[in-house]
């Protein structure tokens, strides 16, 4: 440990810490572009220069390591003056097109200049113009906005380890470019260069001109597109998800998410939602309130002739939802709970980050379903495997799965067909009960990732109409059947989960927090 003084505050940090990191420790953010915690530090943006007493000149805080007794000034006259000067250079050729720039509002150039730049620029010269370039994939390049921090080049070289970007030419003609016709379409993680670009030079084509940054709400969530469980923020406006951005979690995804996951958020905005409980009475679907629907269902369940229940759930729903189904099935005398999940042919690892890959299972809670004792059926497309349900004569319960490949009138011999789902399903359009529930993006809860890590997500959207979390709906039903109250909140619902799964013992909803917690579930071997 080394003791040093930063801006008058004495602080003790480990020996190899950089001044920039040490300053972060006391809440001082030294402006920087080229430094990124997930990349190497070339110390070339010259924005993080700070004054170190006794030093011959200002030193880059991103690469200068702390030393015992060091006295650092991040806000001294010389440091601020130099920062102002460097920022002036950044603006000499910057187009200042903030009104039409997607980065506006979350732009480090805007922020730094507002905080420490000159009020008026002194350049009277014509600006250099590079124009735009389609880099392939989802990435669009605005050369004129670029600050040449080379984070994108270093990400592709050091992290994805596919050097598809480079700096061409030199001096103030230098510009980021792809190689001839080979663009980022060959990359699997290139969307991250948009996130780490501190300005609006690299922008997402998908998000282009869709929303202003300050109009977006950010909600902590989990990427639902594979079982890695990357931590993300859902960015929403007008009850629509507009984009998904990685949220830092060193244990799971570092600073990154894959392009596959990032680009698949639009299903969260999908229409054709069930928005009211529907009960089929005499060949006709009747919408009704929850109380009536659940009371009717309770009666039908209690009056049923053949007891056996067979259930199919979806690994896109939370541990709380799945456990509620299992509890209900148990209350009805037990039975098998199946699930289907799409599965990719192979993993897509991120070369530079150990333990991060787009996993084969393309659903967020496959491990959670398995730990709860659900049985996998069907093929790698997430289809088939429904034999046990199709001809079943008892109760058929479906949670979440829309049975897309099946025709109308699924499970014709069943005494009772219950569909608890978010979306309208053709196969289940004649089910006895269709109960509208929320998706993970509209409720609180937990997923368990491939390594057994339990992670929470929060509601980013309001569910449609009368849709409610499945655990609440099913919990109320089993509560009524067992004559005891179901869980009233997601935390209580998670409590139920921990009681059902040995590996979750000791976990509490609060302790999981926003960064997740590992369970005692064995970590699967790589490639599984």
């Amino acid at each position: 440990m080394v003791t040093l003084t930063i801006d008058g505050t004495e602080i003790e940090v480990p020996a190899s810490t950089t001044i920039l990191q040490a300053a972060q420790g006391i809440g001082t953010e030294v402006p920087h572009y080229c430094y990124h915690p997930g990349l190497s530090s070339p110390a070339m943006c010259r924005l993080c220069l700070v004054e170190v007493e006794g030093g011959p000149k200002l030193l880059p805080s991103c690469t200068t390591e702390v030393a015992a007794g060091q006295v650092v000034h991040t806000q001294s006259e010389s440091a601020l003056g130099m920062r102002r000067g460097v920022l002036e250079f950044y603006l000499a050729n910057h187009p200042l097109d903030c009104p039409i720039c997607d980065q506006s509002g979350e732009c480090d150039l805007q922020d730094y200049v507002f905080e420490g730049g000159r009020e008026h620029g002194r350049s009277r010269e014509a600006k250099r113009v590079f124009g735009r370039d389609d880099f392939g994939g989802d990435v669009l390049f605005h050369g004129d906005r670029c600050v040449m921090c080379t984070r994108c080049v270093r990400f592709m070289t050091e992290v994805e380890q596919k050097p598809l970007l480079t700096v061409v030419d030199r001096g103030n003609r230098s510009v980021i470019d792809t190689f001839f016709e080979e663009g980022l379409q060959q990359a699997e993680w290139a969307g991250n260069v948009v996130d780490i670009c501190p300005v609006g030079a690299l922008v997402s084509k998908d998000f282009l001109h869709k929303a202003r940054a300050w109009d977006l709400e950010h909600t902590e969530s989990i990427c639902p597109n594979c079982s890695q469980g990357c931590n993300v923020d859902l960015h929403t406006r007008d009850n629509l998800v507009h984009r998904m951005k990685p949220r830092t979690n060193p244990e799971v995804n570092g600073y990154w998410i894959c392009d596959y996951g990032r680009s698949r958020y639009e299903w969260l905005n999908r229409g054709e939602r069930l928005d009211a409980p529907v009960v089929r009475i005499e060949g006709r679907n009747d919408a009704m309130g929850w109380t009536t629907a659940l009371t009717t269902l309770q009666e039908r369940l209690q009056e049923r002739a053949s007891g056996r229940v067979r259930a199919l759930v979806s690994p896109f729903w939370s541990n709380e939802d799945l456990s509620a189904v299992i509890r209900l099935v148990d209350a009805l005398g037990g039975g098998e709970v199946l699930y289907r999940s799409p599965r990719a042919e192979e993993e897509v690892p991120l070369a530079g980050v150990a333990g991060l890959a787009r996993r084969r299972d393309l659903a967020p809670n496959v491990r959670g379903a398995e730990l709860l004792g659900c049985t996998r059926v069907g093929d790698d497309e997430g289809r088939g495997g429904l034999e046990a349900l199709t001809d079943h004569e008892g109760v058929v319960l479906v949670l979440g799965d829309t049975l897309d490949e099946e025709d109308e009138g699924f499970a014709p011999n069943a005494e009772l067909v219950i569909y608890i789902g978010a979306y309208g399903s053709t196969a289940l359009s004649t089910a006895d009960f269709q109960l509208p529930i929320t998706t993970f993006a509209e409720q609180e809860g937990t997923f368990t990732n491939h390594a057994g890590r339990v992670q929470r997500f929060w509601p980013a959207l309001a569910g449609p109409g009368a849709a409610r979390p499945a655990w609440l709906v099913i919990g109320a039903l089993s509560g009524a059947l067992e004559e005891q109250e179901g869980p009233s909140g997601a935390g209580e619902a998670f409590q139920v989960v921990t009681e059902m799964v040995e590996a979750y013992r000791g976990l509490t909803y609060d302790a999981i927090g926003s960064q997740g917690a590992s369970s005692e579930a064995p970590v699967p071997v790589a490639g599984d």
Partner: protein
Amino acid sequence: MGYPYSHEKEVPILSKHFGDPQARTLKGWKSRGGYEALEKALAMSPEEVVEVVKASGLRGRGGAGFPTGLKWSFMPKDRSRPHYLLCNADESEPGTFKDRELLRWVPHLLIEGCLIGAYAMGAEHVYIYCRGEFFEANQVLAKAVDDAYEAGIAGEDVLGSGHKIEITVHAGAGAYICGEETGLMNSLEGRRGEPRIKPPFPAAVGAFGMPTTINNVETLCAIPPIVANGGEWYRQWGTEKSPGTKLFCVSGHVRRPGNYELPLGFPLKDLIYDVCGGIVEDRALKAVIPGGSSVPLLSAEEVEDCTLDYEGVVEAGSMLGCASVIVMDETTDIVHQVMRMAAFYAHESCGQCTPCREGTAWVTTILKRIEDGRGTEEDLDVLVQLTDQMTGTTICVLSDSVAAPVQSSIQKFREEYLALIRRGERVGVA
């Protein structure tokens, strides 16, 4: 023998064989006493060789003037990893042409210096990074290295001593910045020629990540005579702090431009008026750049008492740099010359550091505008402030190199700028 001119006040040690084609060949070189110093060095311990160089007081001839022996002693003694010696032959500073002549005329002197240096530092491989545009020099050097290998002077067993020292000649691809020592290392490794942040210093992490020392051609060429004759011998020339002789590249408005090997501490005025035969058509002197285009200009008055040693030039208000003396007479348009220099640095900036990338180009644009008669007096203040912002704020000193001529010219020749700005008059003939 001088080339193309010589003068009686010269002390030809390195330049003794300039213009003598026989000295280029191995046979010719050996008959002139070549490789005797190497043999002598191999009979000494590496530490002893370093001590001799330290005793000579030889300072780096690439521009910074760092004591060579001290630099060599920084190399780690631990030999578990390969050590490298790099020879910086990427001579690109405007006004400098001494290394080219050494490479062309006495390639074996350089090879001998490299081998002695490599032996002294335990380097197993010498890379000579030679400016690509020096086509003839590259060919001559490559031939000399081949001959040295064939004669058993370089390679597996240097002169039968049991020491292995490889030599590779690497031709640069045309970037000024690759003459910066860490930019050179990047270029040698096949990366973009961009200087690296220090620390780590090359002696710890250099070429290919290994302990490395990098020396200028002229520095290494001075090694064989020093080893042959001893450190004290070298001190008979020059000053206490700047011992020895130095090649001065004189260009500009003098009657006899060229390379002159003179003792350090030689008066600048004598160099211009005696050694170089004075100014063309006996015109008046306006300014001198004493150390290559990246050092401040000296006005005619400052030239009067300036002596050409590292300390003397600093005292006069500039730097000795690589001793490239550019002489400008009264017909010189200073604004145009400074603009030309700034444009050169803007073109050669690697583009890593923001103050340099943006600053060099911005300064050039302002200077061009002033030259076109569209400048304002405010521009001069902006130029000084911008170049201030470019000094000491970057990884290497390329951006400082723009600041020096811009600031010194505005300070010393302000009236020339004002003549253009106020009246549209050019002073001198561009």
